[in-house]
């Protein structure tokens, strides 16, 4: 039985608030033991010893919004390549979106993803299945069968379910299975623009997407949720008003949760500057006041999870005039560093940040991971929180290079990533 002993670590378990110096023993792919005095009587025989050098050993990160090109657009990114990017970013579990070709709206396709993940990927991969067939927004998919096949939630990915009737029925039906519905909250008839509707958009002569495109759909869905019951999650919010709406809904006890992307926590619309298409995101980057509200919402727990919203796009579809370029940015490898910037700014504790990337997404999707506890799969990330570095896109694992963080100065990164007891990434080591 293979064993790994992590010594000299700062053990940080956001779920329990546990934060102690100590060691952790992995045995047979599971966390066998951990604690401050663990290796006081000597190291276990035959174990691989990892001296953590005082760095933070945390549960492996879980990223619940990742777009890949498999199946259908493997030239943008395969599951295998995405998993390598994930490992390099400290992400041990990623949830892929159904916006592929074909769309993941059928049991056989969930099977396909699971099989490809098992055979080619080095991190855990689960899929959200489409909520409507072909992402058409009209007929609901086989929610029960898809759930049994392994789909962890239901969403039309980067497409909004626009019809109130379809959403109401889907919520009502999904409730009986306890299935989670994930919405891309953007009213399509108001979202014809290409960036935040603002003075800057006016100056650039670009059509804007108003914040109300987001809030209208969230408020509508919350009304439907009251009516239909079930569990509802907003994939990504982007503006101050949405933070307020979610905060109020939670106070009223509605079963609503929401996420935010690391990019939206770090960037704002001014980064679009002179038509830089790598900053063309959906939902759009909004103004600084919105960004601050998102950071605050994450700090106080209104926002539950932080996602990368990783979305590889090739140069051909990004090197276009802004209005004609595709939306999306990669983010698996910058999720943690971008998040750490908030900790360095004093916006929140490391534990709070990591909670939104570990046990919160695990609990949301019922993954049974995201904690430092004996008996759980040994999904671990060793984090250096302090060393500064500059992001060089050519060093990223992703084959698509559409990162909005080019030349960004970061502080801290993943040093090692372990998935199920297997070391899948060691910083500075080529494998």
């Amino acid at each position: 039985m293979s064993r790994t002993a992590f010594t000299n670590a700062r053990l940080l378990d956001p779920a329990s608030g546990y934060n102690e110096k100590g060691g952790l023993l992995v045995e047979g792919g599971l966390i066998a033991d951990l604690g401050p005095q663990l290796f006081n009587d000597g190291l276990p025989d035959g174990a691989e010893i990892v001296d953590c050098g005082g760095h933070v050993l945390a549960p492996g990160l879980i990223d619940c919004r990742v777009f890949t090109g498999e199946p259908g657009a493997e030239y943008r990114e395969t599951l295998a390549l995405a998993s390598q990017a994930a490992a390099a970013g400290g992400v041990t579990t990623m949830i892929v979106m159904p916006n592929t070709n074909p769309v993941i709206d059928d049991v056989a396709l969930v099977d396909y993803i699971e099989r490809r993940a098992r055979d080619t990927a080095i991190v855990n991969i689960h899929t959200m299945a489409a909520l409507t067939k072909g992402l058409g927004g009209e007929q609901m998919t086989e929610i029960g069968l898809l759930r049994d096949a392994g789909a962890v939630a239901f969403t039309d990915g980067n497409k909004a379910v626009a019809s109130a009737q379809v959403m109401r029925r889907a919520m009502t039906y999904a409730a009986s299975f306890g299935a989670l519905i994930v919405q891309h909250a953007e009213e399509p008839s108001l979202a014809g623009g290409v960036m935040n509707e603002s003075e800057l958009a006016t100056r650039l002569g670009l059509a804007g997407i108003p914040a109300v495109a987001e809030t209208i759909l969230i408020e509508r869905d919350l009304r439907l949720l009251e009516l239909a019951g079930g569990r509802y999650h907003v994939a990504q919010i982007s503006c101050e008003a949405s933070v307020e709406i979610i905060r109020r809904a939670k106070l009223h006890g509605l079963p609503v949760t929401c996420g935010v992307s690391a990019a939206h926590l770090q960037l704002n619309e001014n980064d679009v500057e002179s038509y830089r298409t790598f900053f063309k995101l959906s939902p759009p980057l909004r103004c600084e006041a919105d960004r601050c509200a998102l950071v605050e919402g994450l700090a106080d727990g209104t926002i539950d999870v932080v996602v990368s919203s990783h979305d590889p796009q090739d140069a051909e579809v990004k090197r276009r005039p802004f209005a004609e370029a595709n939306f999306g940015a990669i983010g698996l490898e910058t999720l943690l560093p971008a998040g750490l910037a908030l900790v360095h700014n004093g916006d929140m504790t490391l534990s709070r940040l990591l909670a939104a990337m570990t046990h919160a997404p695990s609990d949301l999707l019922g993954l049974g991971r995201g904690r430092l506890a004996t008996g759980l799969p040994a999904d671990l990330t060793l984090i250096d929180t302090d060393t500064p570095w500059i992001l060089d896109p050519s060093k990223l694992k992703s084959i698509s290079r559409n990162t909005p963080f080019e030349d960004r100065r970061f502080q801290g990164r993943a040093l090692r990533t372990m998935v199920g007891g297997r070391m899948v990434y060691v910083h500075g080591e080529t494998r």
Partner: protein
Amino acid sequence: MTSAEKQPQALFPHRHLLGIEGLSPTDITALLDLADTYVEQNRQVDKKGSVLRGRTQINLFFEASTRTQSSFELAGKRLGADVMNMSVGVSSVKKGETLIDTAVTLNAMHPDLIVIRHGSSGAVELLSQKVSCSVINAGDGAHEHPTQALLDALTIRRRKGKLQGLTVAICGDIMHSRVARSNILLLNAMGARVRVVAPPTLLPKGIERLGVEVFHDMMKGLEGVDIVMMLRLQLERMAGSYVPSQREYFHFHGLDYAKLAVAKPDALVMHPGPMNRGVEIDSAVADDINRSVIREQVEMGVAVRMAVLDALARNLPNERSASERGGAA
């Protein structure tokens, strides 16, 4: 640049003309002064100059435009340049990769000046990054149309003797108008007061932050102004999507004598063309030789474009100045 040593103070210290944004009042005045001289030249029997002799100018139009393209063509030819027109079909070049490929291909032919019009905001700037010659923006999406603003300014300055202190009302589809944006920037830079007059559905968010006074009521917006600048409203935007109907639009926002009466008695009427007569402007007003300077704008257009081409070409590498410098050394 060798010419920089010979001419320490460049007339127009920019490589491209991508927009009015980034130009100083000095830059603008220099172009207008130069354009004034070309107005005179264009009124002579012999209109042909030679400052662009040996230069190649390509007019690359991704959007159909008769008047702007012919104005640039004439401007280039009158300065002695070899001018090539390329109208690229809208449907064939909708994609940016083709756009950049087109630019790279043209660049390989060693043009000195490329005039570009494109339907997407920012497209001309994107292209300017891919070529080694000077680029002139002939209109990009709803972003900028700098030569239009310059020709409007030249028209006003020749009629009123100045720009500073004048009140200019820009009326109509501000939201989709690159002409409006460039004019707002230029007029503000030159010390004019700018008003925008439009139904709220045709005003983009935050327009007041660009330094304009906003009016929804045309009778109030035109009160006491020196210049009434009308914009074109595309007919498809008048079928209920932005305004209910042509009839209603003309009633409240079309320029007729009743509305013009509240402007200053000597207020001038302008329009970038092509006009929708009876939709945004009454035919009689448009043709009123005492008030309308619309035809004059077309004349100024050629002169301004000559000035822009000339000014940018002066900054291009020059064989003569290179050899002179070689001789001096």
